[in-house]
């Protein structure tokens, strides 16, 4: 499908529009809030929260007997939140480390959720159909009421984030200093975690519990590559999240039997890959290029200085030397000499090489620095 057709399809097809808007809402929210999780090195917290949410979805269905989005989302949020409280409690009261606590909560809650899900699916009534989409996500099944729930919750979470932006920045950069100023850092931590839980649960139906963490981590990690300002990181992460969400959801809704979660996550991963490679200054290619440039500059400078040193060993001013003499002092002399000649810093004298006036000034200036 070409871009134009896709755009027309997006705006005319009701289902597709619902899917795209819902995925955009979840992408923006998880991307922006994920920024704080990534900067605080709590990326895996998102993974624990999303897996911990599964039993909440199942219990909410068992208790209310309905698949109303709000009921399921509230169930997921409560379970996710309880999961993080357990993580905090375990790290504080036992000798178990943070990462182990995350792993324990993730697997125990997720396992319990799977048991409940199996139990539900074995029941004779048909109302349960489709709960398993919470595992890997299914954007095509999104309804308008799901979209409204996602959009409203996302807007509330983002508004709260903007409201206490300055306090969250303090929490992320230097919580001890923030505490010394009198801001309740533990309460802010709980608030931020709650916002993160919100961002995660609104994505569960579309992306699924298994891969939702990627939507918290990937957009923020990619955005960090492109900018050094916190506000811009969050903004770009939101945009990346939205782009990955929309593209992935639309593609999976169009193609049959393509699960949405993995498709969205693949899009987000592509963004991460491009960012890791090509971002200016922090990108791998950029750093490799800078490394080469620095090495080349050093190599040329070494040859220039060698020529300068050699020249001063002789009484007559512009004494020339063969490349072989220089090669004794620094490797790759031939290539460096050719490059220096192009820059007008050395000149050929028969088979030998001498400094030009400019080259001599350059070498002398380098030495005096």
């Amino acid at each position, binding site marked *: 499908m070409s871009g134009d057709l896709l755009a027309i399809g997006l705006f005319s097809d009701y289902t597709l529009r619902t899917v795209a808007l819902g995925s955009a809402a979840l992408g923006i929210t998880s991307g922006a809030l994920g920024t704080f999780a990534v*900067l605080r090195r709590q990326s895996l917290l998102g993974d624990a929260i999303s897996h911990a949410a599964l039993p909440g979805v199942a219990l909410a269905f068992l208790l209310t007997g309905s698949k109303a989005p709000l009921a399921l989302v509230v169930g997921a949020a409560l379970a996710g939140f309880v999961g993080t409280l357990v993580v905090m409690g375990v790290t504080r009261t036992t000798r178990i480390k943070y990462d182990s606590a995350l792993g324990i909560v993730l697997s125990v809650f997720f396992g319990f959720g799977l048991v409940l899900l199996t139990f539900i699916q074995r029941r004779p009534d048909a109302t349960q159909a489709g709960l398993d989409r919470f595992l890997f996500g299914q954007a095509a099944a999104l309804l308008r009421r799901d979209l409204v729930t996602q959009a409203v919750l996302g807007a509330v979470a983002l508004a709260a984030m903007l*409201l*206490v*932006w*300055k*306090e969250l*920045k*303090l929490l*992320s*950069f*230097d919580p*001890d*200093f*923030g*505490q*010394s*100023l*009198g*801001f309740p850092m533990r309460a802010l931590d709980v608030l931020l975690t709650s916002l993160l839980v919100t961002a995660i649960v609104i994505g569960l139906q579309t992306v699924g519990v298994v891969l939702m963490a990627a939507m918290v981590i990937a957009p923020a990690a990619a955005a*960090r590559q492109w*900018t*050094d*300002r*916190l506000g*811009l*990181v969050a903004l770009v992460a939101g945009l990346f999240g939205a782009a990955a969400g929309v593209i992935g959801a639309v593609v999976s809704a169009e193609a049959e039997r393509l699960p949405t979660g993995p498709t969205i996550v693949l899009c987000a991963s592509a963004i991460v890959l491009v960012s890791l490679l090509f971002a200016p200054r922090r990108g791998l290619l950029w750093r490799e290029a800078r490394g080469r440039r620095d090495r080349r500059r050093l190599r040329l400078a070494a040859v220039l200085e060698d020529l300068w040193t050699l020249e001063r060993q002789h009484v007559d001013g512009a004494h020339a030397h063969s490349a072989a003499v220089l090669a004794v002092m620094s490797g790759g002399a031939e290539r460096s000499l050719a490059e220096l000649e192009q820059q007008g810093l050395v000149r050929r004298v028969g088979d030998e090489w001498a400094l030009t006036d400019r080259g001599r000034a350059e070498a002398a200036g380098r030495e005096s620095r």
Partner: protein
Amino acid sequence: MNAIEVTDMTVAYGEKPVLWDVDLEVRKGVLMAIVGPNGAGKTTLIRAVLGLVKPAAGQALVHGRPYAAQRSLVAYVPQRGSVDWDFPTSVLDVVLMGRYGRIGWVRRPGKVDREAAREALAQVGMADLAGRQISQLSGGQQQRVFLARALVQHAEVYFMDEPFQGVDATTEKAIVELLRALREQGKTVVAVHHDLQTVPEYFDEVTLLNVRRIASGAVDEVFTEENLRRTYGGRAALFGRNGA
């Protein structure tokens, strides 16, 4: 009335006491160093006074009242290594954090705050680096950013955790000048300090700490070889007043 009055401060991690029944009195306008070997509880003492660790016992008064009621009088310079300097933010932005307490919840820093931040940066010789990304700072510059952040708090009492740790000569000189300027304004400074050689030159008073308080008072009186030996357990003979 003393600037700081700590009584019976005791902190334990698990079974192990880190600070044991420590008293500390600091008069106003004094520069005091806290010295002691690694694990002596120097950082913990500051953190306990600031309420960052929960003491098992003890209390801290600042200008005669409990610390919690006097936060606006107190500035804190944590160890430079305690934060991630790759955090996406600028020098000015970090210094502005020192204003957050007075700005209060939700509201954003305004023009007055930015002016105060620029002024503080000028005081530590970093006026032209305000817009720089913090990951591009040298260790000494990082330290000066932290000091500027404390300066914009316009506090009366300054707690500094190893301000001289790993800084270049320029920064060391800037910090010393800053400490003297603060003393001239009648401010009080308590700094954890590692370099015993410079204690007499930089500070008026010193507290020797090793889980318990070994001695505290004017440098002339208590910074003796005998007290240092009691603090460091004999390993400090080289560092005596006139030694080394």
